[in-house]
């Protein structure tokens, strides 16, 4: 270990020797931002390792045991640390950063409460297969297991919600563990990896070098994700496609993760197959494309679910047939053969029985499949496509979309989403929160670009939108980043307004204020016979709130004010908020009640047009005429 001030190899005349000496010095000692030279410690190795992995941002919050890292952060100017206001937001921001850019997101917290605060965000990333490295400090080695101040068994806590986790006890381990953590986080089916590092490991002097990618792979005999599908299975799929009369593609997040959008479109065009998508699959195809049929599932489009129910071949690609997608599996797509492509072998046969399983990366499998596809003459599909078109017209025409918003001057949620998307040239990143707002974004966001829709699908974490949009804004500064949140979810993480103001992160926030836990109210109305409880949500005067935080804000209460406010918010260089006072009792339709099947959608505008409210809820509340007043 070099002593401070000592430059190994100084005075050597040979250029090579001096270069080697310079490298040695860089490895063993650091020139600090305050001048002078000090030994290289574990915390330096951590910063170097993150930069070497191509991530340039850490979302974090300091605390006792992680302070050694904050002591050296300034010496690594390539690494931007963004101070959040709550560690949950750090994890969501790292998540949004990763989803928008495909890079690994990095978040950081101290031991104990800092670490437990990260947990919700780590779990959110796990359920949605998001590459993330979550770093926590832990108490010094000697105190581990002693219930020391702010000690908690955090690796025990994150074990079931990470792809892998580590407890690092010495500085020398740091370069290897961090490189391995990034590799595991982003390869195969991505996911969060948690690295817990003791204070002594952060502070210990180290000369450990960074491993190569090959070293890392060689060191992981138990981890070899299978990317190429089995050729025989791929051939069988090509045959199944050639024989199908009513094929439907179900595209999921795996297509986006693999970057297989082009291959997907080629398949759809060659074999003339309509593409439908899951919540996290939004963006796999330009929604304006003639082969883009729509969003499926519990709150998906009726025509899409109808197409699935009547299909003779379903081709699931990078999706997992979860319960929000299938409803009751027994009645799911009763006439269809199911082909299932996924990189995670455990997904195959987990939720539905696959007739034709293919384990592999979506891009690799589609690449191998495309040459085997016999080009289909669109004329063969005339009847099929005509029927699909009719269904589509019926189901789209039955929603408020495009017309209802102006009716009676009521500001409907779908109209707001539509104006945000249109006002941003259908090119912004839209991050949703959870609840009705999430479904409205999914249905009406009109996405045209991959990775432009960000949503907590698997865990359904309220409070996700603002911090995740913050991450997306930093990761992809050339695109506008919207956070579209309900009043409930917004109030769960609104402390991050201070972060976006301090760091001038240009997030545009659309607060969809129905003064309710809207999705809870909808379920209580429809499933619990109008027995409302705890769904009324008082909120502050959001204009005053934004004023206090130093954030420009507009209030929109009628449809005619929407476009101007969107334009004004977009004209701001920095962050801005629009407070949309939307209809208080608008429901998301159609809706598949839990336990029911895709053919049992409740659709207020459906053929039967039945009133779905029963029991003693009083007269049915017409969502077209929301009640005024209520708690502010």
């Amino acid at each position, binding site marked *: 270990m070099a002593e401070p001030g000592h430059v190994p190899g100084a005075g050597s005349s040979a250029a090579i020797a001096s270069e080697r000496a310079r490298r040695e010095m860089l490895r063993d000692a650091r020139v600090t931002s305050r001048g002078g030279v000090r030994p290289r410690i574990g915390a330096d190795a951590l910063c170097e390792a993150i930069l070497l992995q191509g991530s340039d941002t850490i979302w974090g919050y300091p605390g006792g045991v992680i302070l050694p890292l904050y002591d050296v952060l300034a010496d690594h100017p390539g690494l931007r640390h963004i101070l959040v206001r709550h560690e949950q937001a750090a994890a969501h921001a790292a998540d949004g950063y990763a989803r928008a850019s495909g890079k690994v997101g990095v978040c950081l917290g101290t031991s104990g409460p800092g670490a437990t605060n990260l947990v919700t965000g780590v779990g959110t990333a796990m359920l949605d297969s998001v590459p993330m490295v979550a770093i926590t400090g832990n108490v010094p080695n000697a105190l581990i297991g002693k219930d020391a101040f702010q000690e908690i068994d955090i690796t025990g806590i994150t074990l079931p919600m990470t792809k*892998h986790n580590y407890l690092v006890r010495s500085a020398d381990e740091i370069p290897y563990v961090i490189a391995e953590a990034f590799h595991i986080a982003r390869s195969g089916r991505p996911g969060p990896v948690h690295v817990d590092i003791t204070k002594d490991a952060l502070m210990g002097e180290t000369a450990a070098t960074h491993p190569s990618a090959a070293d890392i792979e060689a060191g992981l005999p138990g981890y070899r994700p299978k990317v190429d599908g089995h050729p025989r299975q791929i051939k069988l799929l090509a045959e199944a496609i050639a024989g199908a009369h009513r094929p439907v593609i179900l595209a999921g997040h795996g297509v986006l993760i693999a970057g297989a959008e082009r291959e997907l479109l080629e398949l759809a065009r060659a074999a003339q197959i309509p593409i439908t998508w899951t919540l996290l699959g939004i963006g796999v195809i330009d929604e304006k494309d003639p082969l883009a049929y729509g969003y499926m599932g519990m709150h998906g489009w009726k025509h899409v679910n109808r197409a699935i129910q009547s299909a003779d071949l379903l081709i699931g690609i990078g999706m997992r047939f979860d319960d929000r997608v299938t409803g009751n599996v*027994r009645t799911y797509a*009763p006439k269809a053969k199911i082909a299932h492509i996924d990189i995670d*072998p455990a997904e195959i*046969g987990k939720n539905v029985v696959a007739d034709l399983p293919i384990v592999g990366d979506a891009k690799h499998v589609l690449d191998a499949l495309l040459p085997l596809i016999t080009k289909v003459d669109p004329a063969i599909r005339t009847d099929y496509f005509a029927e699909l078109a009719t269904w589509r017209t019926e189901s789209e025409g039955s929603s408020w979309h495009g017309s209802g918003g102006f009716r009676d001057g009521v500001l409907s949620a779908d109209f707001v989403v539509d104006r945000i998307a249109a006002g941003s040239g259908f090119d912004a990143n839209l991050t949703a929160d959870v609840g009705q707002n999430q479904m409205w974004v999914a249905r009406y966001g009109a996405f045209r670009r991959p990775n432009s829709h960000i949503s907590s699908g698997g865990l359904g974490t309220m409070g996700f939108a603002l911090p995740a949009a913050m991450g997306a804004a930093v990761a992809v500064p050339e695109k506008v980043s919207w956070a579209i949140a309900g009043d409930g979810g917004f109030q769960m993480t609104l402390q991050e307004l201070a972060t976006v103001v301090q760091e001038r992160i240009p997030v545009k926030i659309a607060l969809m204020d129905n003064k309710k836990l809207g999705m809870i109210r909808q379920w209580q109305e429809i499933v619990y016979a109008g027995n409302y409880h705890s769904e009324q949500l008082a909120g502050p005067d959001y204009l005053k709130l934004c004023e206090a935080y130093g954030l420009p804000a507009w209030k929109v209460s009628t449809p005619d004010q929407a476009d101007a406010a969107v334009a004004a918010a977009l004209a701001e260089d920095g962050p801005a908020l629009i407070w949309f006072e939307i209809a208080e009792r608008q429901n998301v339709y159609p809706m598949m009640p839990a336990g029911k099947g895709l053919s049992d959608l409740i659709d207020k505008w459906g053929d039967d047009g039945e009133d779905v409210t029963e029991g003693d809820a009083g007269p049915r509340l017409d969502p077209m005429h929301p009640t005024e007043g209520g708690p502010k």
Partner: protein
Amino acid sequence: MSVGTSARSLPGSGEERRHLIVAIVNNKPGVLNRVASLMRARNFNIESLAVSVTERSDTSRMTLTIVGDEVHVEQAAKQLYKLIDVLKVQDVTDDSTVEHELALIKVRATKRSRPEIVSVAEMHRAKVVDLGDEAVIVEVVGEPADIDALVELLREFGIKELVRTGSVVMSRGSGSIEEQVKR
């Protein structure tokens, strides 16, 4: 819209039976916890679990017995594979194997009953490894069903304590699961 009358079958609705799974894992702290945590979280019912180091000091071998249908157990194996520290998983239920378990059984004894206990043990190729005034310890190695049978017989005398290691299993012939681990 009409729905076909034939219902889609659910994964894992086949016949349940006992499966024997062998896993080769990294010999590192916490790996047992990872396996146990996974099994609990995913609702797999482990009947027994035996762990020990292998011929290589850097790997351990786990033998798990799980009850479930084919799909359920296959799912358990696939989930195990997702653990980074798991190098190889194999369902050996239908393979030709040697499956053995060791049990220690402390049986209540009197001067009078002692010879009888000893002869019962010997009949079952079990050993008496401790002879006390009031109790004897019987050690037996064999297939779980044989141990069950012996335990049943000894129950007449009164069992004070019983410990079983859980099954360990090895396939017959020259094949080696350890040699199949890719490194």
